[in-house]
């Protein structure tokens, strides 16, 4: 498979995952572009994997977790004279309370929820993605769901996928 074919087929999925992780479309583009750049550098090897998408999604997730700030930090040379436009901040109330609470979760917890409930990964797959133990993933998920005040009695996902 050529890189362009892979990217053409999987780019929308990567962007959707990225925007759920970081909450900001512009930052999501940055993250995915960075991930694709790294992917392309090693494409000869990545294309031979069983699931190249899973690997690139891992890069996107790691990129999200390694970013220290919630919003993108722009740097320009000190000599720059012109002002630059900062990323537009979305209106304060453009979504539900649940989304707002999700945005305030610690990054690892948010990543676990996105990977578990949007991407449908098992706890072990999430653990492999985040580089931690499955028990840690369950801990993150538990704390995140508690913070979101979500009933977990009917959570069949974790048990079924673990």
């Amino acid at each position: 498979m050529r890189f362009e074919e892979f990217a053409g087929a999987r780019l929308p999925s990567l962007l959707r995952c990225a925007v759920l992780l970081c909450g900001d479309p512009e930052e999501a583009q940055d993250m995915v572009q960075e991930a694709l750049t790294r992917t392309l550098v090693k494409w000869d090897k990545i294309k031979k994997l069983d699931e190249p998408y899973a690997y690139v999604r891992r890069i996107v997730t790691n990129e999200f977790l390694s970013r220290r700030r919630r919003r993108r930090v722009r740097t320009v040379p000190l000599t720059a004279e012109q002002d630059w436009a900062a990323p537009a901040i979305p209106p304060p109330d453009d979504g539900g309370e649940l989304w707002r609470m999700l945005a305030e979760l610690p990054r690892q917890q948010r990543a676990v929820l996105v990977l578990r409930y949007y991407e449908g990964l098992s706890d072990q797959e999430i653990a492999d993605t985040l580089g931690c133990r499955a028990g840690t993933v369950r801990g993150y998920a538990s704390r995140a769901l508690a913070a979101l005040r979500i009933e977990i009695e009917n959570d069949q996902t974790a048990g079924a996928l673990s």
Partner: protein
Amino acid sequence: MTTLDELRRTLEERATTAPDGHGLVQAAQVGAARVRHRRRVTRVILGAGLALAVAVGTPVVVQQRRAAPTPAIVPDRARLADEMTLNIDPAAGIRVGQWGTSASGQWLEVFVPTSTGRDYQAHVAAYPPGHPERKAYPGQTVEMTESQGRPARYLHGSHLEMLVWRDAGGNQISVERRAFPFPDGPGASSPAQDSLDRATLQKIAEAVRFEAPRKIRMPIRFGPLRDGLRFGSMSVQHDEPQRVQVVMAMEYPNTRSDNRRQIDIFVTTGRRNGEESGLTAVPDINGYRAWYGPYGDNKRRNLLLLQVGQCSLEFITSPGMTRQQIIDLSTEAKLIPCEQVDAWEPPIS
């Protein structure tokens, strides 16, 4: 209470806000070409340098190996939360990038040039006596070894290697390398490319040292702090003259982890116009342009933005903090244009 179905529905709905990705593939191709070119150039330069070093420097190295290793310097008193004592021996040829500190520990990101053209990057951390022992993850192998003449553990797995030891004073020091994950999937022709390198890890460990406590400096110095506000943590990246990034957190006492009351301060290179970020102009603060408004989609926190010299200075308020409180805090502070590095001061005195 909410349900999982609502969570899934929210995620599905929000996923539709993803951008279309136009031009991303082309941008990635340009970026990848740049990376490859940089690696090629670095490889050639390092190869030439290595050959020269072997030809000229071997006698010098042999002589140095006979000398006793430089002992780590021990600070003359315990450090405070906003002080650093951790450092790297400047003679070791190791570059320090970002670094930071908090009440519980201090850390450095370090880079060692390698013959592959890609720096070996590692994370050095130090915690005071009493900090729990670093445990190995399942699947990690532990070997007993030595670092700086002290018993040490070498933990390693497929993508991580770490040296952990305690110095004579009981401080726990760790040097950790996380290789960029590259699974050896079926059909992959070779093992991970970003390989682990125990010798380099050991070299970094031997270069770790403690110095006398030194105050961190910032382009801001706060005036009186009210309601028990105190230093929380800080990270600094200033390894290039044209790039400054300082992140500092100030905490209120008795804050809960699930409802943290803290002010975050960001200093970054670049000129910002707050109105383009949806903020409202407020009267100048200490002669610098200022804007105030909501912080993103967070309803509980607000943002005060100042343009100070060539840097933007952002205060993300603690939940419940009023506009006047944050303006007072910044007005009573001494603001220093970030390009005047020599004039930076400890933020809290």
